[in-house]
């Protein structure tokens, strides 16, 4: 038994269709975020942006098609622990993620 049926293997997901493609989502702790802009610079997919008044800027995901690849680089650079990955990317059909658990930090106990 294969994990994907032949029909699924033939299906190529459409990127801007919410039924086909689910991209990463980041959770932002607005209390900790001080708008230092580091995560918007480091983001390899250019999906983060600053918003808000001049002295109280916060970060958010850009509107429209966001192709976040859930690399968590924004969390790695954040000094204030204000941003982290909430949902990882997944697709239907040929590029469906198989046999994965939730995204977690490195574990020392199992």
């Amino acid at each position, binding site marked *: 038994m294969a994990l994907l049926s032949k029909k699924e293997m033939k299906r*190529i997901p459409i990127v801007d269709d919410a039924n086909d493609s689910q991209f990463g989502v980041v959770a932002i702790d607005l209390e900790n975020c001080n708008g230092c802009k580091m995560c918007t610079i480091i983001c390899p997919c250019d999906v983060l942006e600053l918003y808000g008044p001049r002295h109280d800027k916060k970060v958010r995901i850009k509107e429209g098609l966001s192709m976040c690849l859930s690399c968590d680089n924004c969390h790695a650079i954040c000094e204030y622990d204000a941003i982290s990955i909430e949902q990882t990317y997944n697709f239907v059909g040929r*590029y469906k993620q198989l046999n994965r658990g939730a*995204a977690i930090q490195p574990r020392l106990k199992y």
Partner: protein
Amino acid sequence: MSDIAKDRVDANDAEETEQQPRRAVKTTEIEEGDPWNTIEAAFLKRRSIRRFKKKQVPAHMIRRILEIGRFAPSQGNCQPWKYVVVRDRETITEMENFCADMCRKISGALDYTAYKKGTFARWRSETFLKLFAKWRPSNMHPVPFGAVNLIANDRFKVFHHPPTIIIPLMDTRGIGHPEIDLGIVGTNIVMAAHSLGLGTCWVGLASFLNDSAEWRERLGVEEPYQLIEAISVGYVLGKPMQNTVARETHETLWIEDGEKNLIY
């Protein structure tokens, strides 16, 4: 001297390698929950770096990194690689421009997100992409598709404009799967650079250079060698490696004592 011996380039004519002191490696007892050791922590904290300082990395450091690559394991000790190191700003910019042009060509034909749903143009490029995906499924994954679009729109540079690019070329005559050996060499290079405080990033889109006769000549890529990946190396800008990141757990089939268990 035999023909084979003559072909070897003697790099170590004058230098005599120092004898390393022999030391037995002790396997220390590790208990569950013990903190990560230095090497483990280095692996966990390594990130792909996409912002580099302009400062050039000293040549001796790059040589040192390549030296670690030389001792990578390979199938049947066949060592199916050689390196190209590019340290010219102009050449790097030209390489970036060439790859960006290729991305623009591909994106122009295949980017259906540029058109409104329901239009003919949208249907045409969607169909074209699906056909293309049948031919090269791994290249048409939605994630690289997004990266190609970013590069085509000039929001992103292919090599991230590093001071140095290391390109391990693959000898296609390697034993078994030479691609894997190339990956192991690359990992050695990346981890050696990380241990010296340098940032690295694998660049898969560099394989466009392999398809161009001009660039094959300029980079000395000749049969039986092939350019598959490139590694950008440079000083890290900012502090992008402060925290470890979250990653998905992967299914593991654990076979022990006649039992099979799935663990994550």
